[in-house]
């Protein structure tokens, strides 16, 4: 069976700034993976490469055996760290857009999610508060029955109550045979849902390990380990 997501010596730079260097990793199906790193460590670049929004300067990326492109975009549901809906859209129109372009869109699931997230189809998306926009973004991403969900900072910039609600929605609505990669630097709030974590620093991969393994080997939580690792920077 093809690996869900595979990076092979992937590097990416923006001008002189190196965003990722020589990243090699793989993600298997049925996992919730935390992609951890401080601001500017390369998390978003890694996500955008996997989502097919950017091309690596070197190395290979495969999603279910496909190079990033039309086939991979049909299998990946990406929640970017900024609104993916257009300013003129209502919540309903944003969902209709997803339905029109993605064959794996699940209308029943999207209605359940709207209800869970307390969103109304008639609301203008750009007029929603930041927390509600995050909820809409998550609804757009999870309303699909995708093989791989890439969620870039889904809880960044929202209050703790909204955070819990978003995490509950994530656990409730993701497809169990799919994998979810969640990028964040707010680990304490979210580590309870991770099966494994990937840590990157200054564009390089520091570690990829099972959460249980980290706890058993070091006797620390992921949050504690993260603070230790990144305190050295």
């Amino acid at each position: 069976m093809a690996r869900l997501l595979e990076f092979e010596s992937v590097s990416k730079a923006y001008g002189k700034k190196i965003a990722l260097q020589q990243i090699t990793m793989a993600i298997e199906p049925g996992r919730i993976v935390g992609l951890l790193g401080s601001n500017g460590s390369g998390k978003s670049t890694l996500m955008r490469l996997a989502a097919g929004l950017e091309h690596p300067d070197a190395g290979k990326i495969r999603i279910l055996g496909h190079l990033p492109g039309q086939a991979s975009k049909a299998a990946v549901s990406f929640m970017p760290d900024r609104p993916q809906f257009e300013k003129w859209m209502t919540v309903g129109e944003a969902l209709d857009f997803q339905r029109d372009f993605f064959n794996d869109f699940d209308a029943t699931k999207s209605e359940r999610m709207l209800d869970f997230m307390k969103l109304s189809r008639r609301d203008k998306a750009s007029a929603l508060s930041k927390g509600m926009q995050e909820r809409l973004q998550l609804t757009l991403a999870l309303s699909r029955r995708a093989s791989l969900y890439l969620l870039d900072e889904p809880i960044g910039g929202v209050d703790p109550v909204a955070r819990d609600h978003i995490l509950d929605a994530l656990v409730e609505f993701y497809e169990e045979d799919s994998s979810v990669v969640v990028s964040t630097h707010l680990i304490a709030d979210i580590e309870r849902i991770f099966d494994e974590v990937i840590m990157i620093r200054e564009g390089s991969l520091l570690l990829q390990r099972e959460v249980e393994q980290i706890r058993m080997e070091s006797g620390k939580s992921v949050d504690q380990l993260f603070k230790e690792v990144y305190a050295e920077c």
Partner: protein
Amino acid sequence: MLKLLKYDMKRDLFTLLGGAAALVLGLLAIELLGKQVGMERGAQAVLSLMGYTFFGILILIAVCNSFRLNIRSVGRRLVPLGSLHYVGSALLYGLLLNGVLLVIGGLHMLYYQATGILQQLEQSGSFTINWDSSIPLPFGVSLIVLWGSLFLLTLLLLVMAMMESMRFKGRTLIAVAAVIGISILTSAVENSFFGGAGTQALTGFQIESQSELNLPTESLGAVLPAFLFELVMSALFTWVTVKLINRSVRVE
């Protein structure tokens, strides 16, 4: 492609309706106010034609802006469609809007014909039609306008994609220079190889003075090589545009 077009139209709905209303009101104002202030028929016709040209330019701007938004938008770029679809939907959008403009223009001509204004213009020599093609005149004019706008759009979309691929200041100036440069180059090639028998939109229309316009024509045989040249050029522009979207355009 059609789905992208659907969302382009939904996004621009109010602008499009407002633009159409402004054009119709403008034409009515030229007609009614022109009569009241005693403006010559020829001058009114030229003014109306200038109105159509102005709206033709606005259509190009609207389509380019829509294309630019689409290739930069994360939501649009995540959909499982090849980059050719973005170019295709923009070209269809341009065709559709120009088609609407042509329909309004056609109705305007029908009004001129029904009220005898067209005959008056022809008799006074302010408006001359020398159409010796086997293609019916309305169809021929539509073809020239639509193909011309399509060709120009492929060039403009290429320049938009170039502009969105650059990461430094002054890219707008570079884009303007690119439009002028490529246009001059294309025209120079057409002049050298096809004796200036280009098929660009409105090359057949000439405004001689403030109140005179002519509509000369060239035979189909004379413009066919130029048309084929433009077809190859627009395919080349589209190919480069797709490559740029795939490799260089930065998604916001």
